[in-house]
């Protein structure tokens, strides 16, 4: 079954040089294939994030090698590492400064649930302050797991009603 907002219809004999599609499909295709991460690399998971950006695991295949450390220029915040309560306010502020549309990947056990740190200093999951779209388990997750999370996020974005959101916002 083809979902209506991801379908691209093109018959070159009839259409010629024109592609007719749904706005949702085009907008979602553009967003998924250039998902620029904001690497909130706080701890060891950031090293695996760097590994994903390297040549072997190559996040550039997905259009996401552009690690923009400015929240104004990024789409997806990858919270990679332990969020202490002291750092939580900074993480939330950076998230607030990102422009819509924005998504969050909680990478690793510490960002997802607080991980091994069940303590007074570590926030038990970054989802207490941010709306997380994809959680990645692992300590640290394999680079392939982070790429899998990116693919899941792309699938999630492809299902969005983007045109409706843009027109109504």
């Amino acid at each position, binding site marked *: 079954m083809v979902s209506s907002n991801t379908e691209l219809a093109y018959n070159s004999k009839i259409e010629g040089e024109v592609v007719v599609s749904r706005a949702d499909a085009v907008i979602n295709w553009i967003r998924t294939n250039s998902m620029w991460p904001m690497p909130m690399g706080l701890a060891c998971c950031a090293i695996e994030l760097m590994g994903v950006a390297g040549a072997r695991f190559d996040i550039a295949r997905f259009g996401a090698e552009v690690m923009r450390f400015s929240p104004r220029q990024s789409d997806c915040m990858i919270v990679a590492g332990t969020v202490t309560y002291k750092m939580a306010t900074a993480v939330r502020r950076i998230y607030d400064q990102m422009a819509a549309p924005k998504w969050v990947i909680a990478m690793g056990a510490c960002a997802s649930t607080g991980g*091994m*740190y*069940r*303590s*007074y200093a570590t926030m038990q999951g970054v989802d207490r302050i941010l709306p997380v779209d994809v959680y990645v388990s692992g300590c640290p997750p394999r680079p392939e797991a982070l790429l899998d999370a990116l693919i899941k996020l792309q699938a999630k974005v492809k299902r969005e009603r983007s045109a409706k959101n843009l027109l109504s916002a």
Partner: protein
Amino acid sequence: MPADVANALKEKFPQLTARASLDHPAFNVPVADVVAALKYLRDEAAFDMLTDLTAIDWAEGAAPRFTVVYHLFSTTNHTYVRIATDCPSDAEPAVPSVVSLWPGANWHERECYDMFGIKFAGHPDLRRILMWEGYPYHPLRKEFPLAGIETPLPDPDIAAETGANLIAAPMMGGPFVAAPGEINLTEAEPRAKDESWTEREEKPE
């Protein structure tokens, strides 16, 4: 530590007493002499590296309550020595800072201040290091619970926007410790001491 160095140290600082220690030579020093003793060890006895600076809380009611412990290492002789000094006051514990001797002591002293409340006189920048400024407790004191105490987050606008605050971490049946002596790795992994209850399921009576 060679015997002549220990004897020279005891001669120079007559109020030094030996401290019970299983591994390395250890001495108790009164707080008035501690900076001079550490300086002597660094300059004359070649203990050039401060490997650790930490503290002990003997719990409320003990006198003295706080002890600051310094671990020194000699990179040339490959020997360790431990120096311990009791804080004179229990309510306002304070010792002199050794940042002038070893700059690496800066963060260790900030950590002691954050976790125990021990002030280091002469420290260039004594503020909390793990918890935020204005956090009301000192977490490694004996009366502080393992999981933490519920507190509002430091920034009121973030706290209002997210509705989050610092919660007592869900302990769910006790600290997570590894079972000793198990060979089966599934059983040997760290798990709660009491697994009969979790956050979702109440404890069966």
